[in-house]
């Protein structure tokens, strides 16, 4: 197992290198000069030139690239061009919030989405199925900045149960949980909608399988047939979706973070992009990439857990 994980991590290295190169090139292709962005519109060309020299932006591109790769290999992400704060410290301060939100949204998505998908499949084309499909369609089409504001209006302003400002105190578990409820519901419902749809279609494809009928004929209770035999076989596509979606959630929860005033990785990425904070963007992308690789690895390991044939292969 350890050998397998190590092999997978090694195999991710070329991907990581390709992404690093792409990020390095992309942030520089985008027009807009970091030095000018930092110094504002009153700065003289001399001041802009001086800052470019200080930031190393006047060096040849290849030299910047080599330095960047060497730094990344050492795990040294340097300091933000704008704030002069170490990038790892900034990321370290927000990553617990991002992980909280991602995990909570995932749990809500699974707890709501899988049963809803299974029921919808079992009652195909009946009221439950239609309701589940409609609700999942609604979940997918409602942008989080609208559903988030609705939740805030109801639960923060009207009933005053939750605060509007969601920057939780990490040292206080109650505060952390309280401020997680609304954002995780907002994001979790979108995920639940996805999972419902995938689970439903996946379940439909296994319900008519021979082994299902055989199990039923052997006298296994129907509930057990569905959840043990059916769902386990229908589980692979669901795990794939969950895995993919976690990757998306880590970076794309930015809208939820903004609406609920939560700190997070997505918000830092947007801020760094606006400021043309090259070093911050590069550091964030490396970390993000690493997280995606880890999530993919965990997804692959989960395949083996659900379906032993995958492990043998």
């Amino acid at each position: 197992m350890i050998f397998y994980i190590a092999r997978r991590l090694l195999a991710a290295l070329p991907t990581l290198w390709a992404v690093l190169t792409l990020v390095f090139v992309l942030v520089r292709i985008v027009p807009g000069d970091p030095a000018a962005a930092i110094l504002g519109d009153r700065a003289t060309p001399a001041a802009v030139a001086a800052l470019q020299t200080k930031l190393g932006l006047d060096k040849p591109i290849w030299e910047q690239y080599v330095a960047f790769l060497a730094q990344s290999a050492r795990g040294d992400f340097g300091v933000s061009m704008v704030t002069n704060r170490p990038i790892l410290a900034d990321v370290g301060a927000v990553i617990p919030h991002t992980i909280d939100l991602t995990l909570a949204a995932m749990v809500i998505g699974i707890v709501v989405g899988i049963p809803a998908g299974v029921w919808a499949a079992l009652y195909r084309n009946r009221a439950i199925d239609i309701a589940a499909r409609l609700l999942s369609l609604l979940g997918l089409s409602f942008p989080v900045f609208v559903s988030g504001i609705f939740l805030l209006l109801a639960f923060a302003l009207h009933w005053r149960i939750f605060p509007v400002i969601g920057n939780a105190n990490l040292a206080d578990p109650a505060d952390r949980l309280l401020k997680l409820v609304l954002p995780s519901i907002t994001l979790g419902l979108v995920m639940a909608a996805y999972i419902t749809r995938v689970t439903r279609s996946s379940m439909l494809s296994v319900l008519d399988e021979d082994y299902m009928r055989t199990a039923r004929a052997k006298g296994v209770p129907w509930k057990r047939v569905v959840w043990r035999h059916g769902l386990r076989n229908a589980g692979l596509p669901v795990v794939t979706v969950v895995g993919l979606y976690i990757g998306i959630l880590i970076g794309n929860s930015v809208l939820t973070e903004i609406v609920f005033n939560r700190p997070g990785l997505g918000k830092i990425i947007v801020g760094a992009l606006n400021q043309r904070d090259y070093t911050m963007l590069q550091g964030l992308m490396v970390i993000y990439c690493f997280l995606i690789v880890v999530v993919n690895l965990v997804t692959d390991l989960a395949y083996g857990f659900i379906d032993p044939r995958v492990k043998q292969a």
Partner: protein
Amino acid sequence: MKFRHILLAATLLAAPLAPAHAAKTDLIVGMAAQDVGKLDPHLAVSTIDRTVVAWLFNGLVRFKPGSMSPADIEPDLAASWDASADKKVWTFKLRPGVKFHGAYGELTADDVVYSLQRAADPKRSASSGDFASFEKVEAVDPLTVRITLKQTIPSLLGIITNYGGGFIVSKKAAEEMGDSFNAHPVGTGPFAFAANTPNQSLELVAHKAYFRGAPKIEKISYRYLPANASRDLAFQNGELDLEFGNQDQTWVDRMKKLPGAVVDVFEPGEEAILHLNAAQKPLDDLRVRQAIAYAINRPELIKFQGADVSRQPGSVIPIGNLGYVDAGLPGNDIAKAKALLAEAGFKDGLTLKVVHTQLPNMLAQMQVVQAQLKRAGINLDLQVVEHATYHQMIRQDLSAIVFYSAARFPVADVYLTQFYHSRSTVKTPTAVANFSHCTAADAEIDAARTEPDGAKQIALWQAAQKKIVAQMCAVPLIETLQAWVHKDNLVYGYDLKGSLSLGPIINETTHFK
């Protein structure tokens, strides 16, 4: 039943969030920001950074709190000053016993010399351009500083006020910390840096040894809340005492209706101006530039933005600047605009390629302008790009018209020099923000800068504005004021009419009722 229990438990958990009614000492501010960028006062340029820096630092002199009129400049770290007859040598006596934050000791002339030299150094300052006329700054004794100028300038006090390069930092702290001074600023102001949680908030504490007395507010939490809607909801929910607002009427009206909310609308007015690029065809033809001016309908723009937060400009520099004059801007006259276009050979109208930002406020205003110009047959082909890209492209001289909204230090020289002097033309080594390639008033702007007689100086600035309008280098559109909102139990301790930091000044007198 179960749901009720959950609801009750949740309500109990939320109980500490209910607003306290006893006199508070903690101020919570909501700012439209992802994070602070520069807390080094010599590098702070965004509204986000400037607002806070003004609470942390002092200048040798300051604008009276609540004002940004050069007539209201008063002593700050300097107790008194005098100037030589030719106004080239200025001597400042420092206030004794002024303490820096933390363990950085007392302010001396060395700190002032170091700070002003640092502010003049393009490698360490965004305001170095303001110090071009400084010959030397020296410490005469521990409490006396002498500034020698190369030539007389319109307002030396303006440069050393509590704005931009005028802020005084602790020499010891800045030297000790180097680049990280930006993240741990040390000044003499009423509040001191305590902590910054990335992406969340900046925490400040009262500087108990502040030379004007210990502030009544003990802590300030400056929260980064970029989404306007949820920042407003947080204010409405009692989670904020003071909030950065939107410069539009709908927002002002909505906030005014909230119980216990006081909307602050104050100077400076940021003047939005169309800079017409006379180096490009067909804008090299004065008649085409005049046609654009006649096609603009300023009252309509004010109606769009809101009467409470905007006003009609009267010149190519903002109202209230020292030296401002009503320069006689052309009024809205579509027939005249069309006639001028026909005379210039564009009977069937023309199309201009314009680079513009996607920032919502500026884009909306530009779309109104686009509709107005269309009535005269002038089509604006808007190339909408991301804001940093827009800044880069307009400085590369890539746009026929540049829509630019700005406020500057309120002395005519600054705006005139930066936007209309040929030395400031974009894509030249001395470029600042002359997007129109204007050369109409170089002589007047230069003469005014060294004119010792105040009245003559103002006359020169006024003549310059009239010449710029006559040449139609730029078409003023609208002036938009700053808009914030605070709880009625928060008392600033002064009358807020203007603030060059673009946010309310929080000082030792600010308190909760």
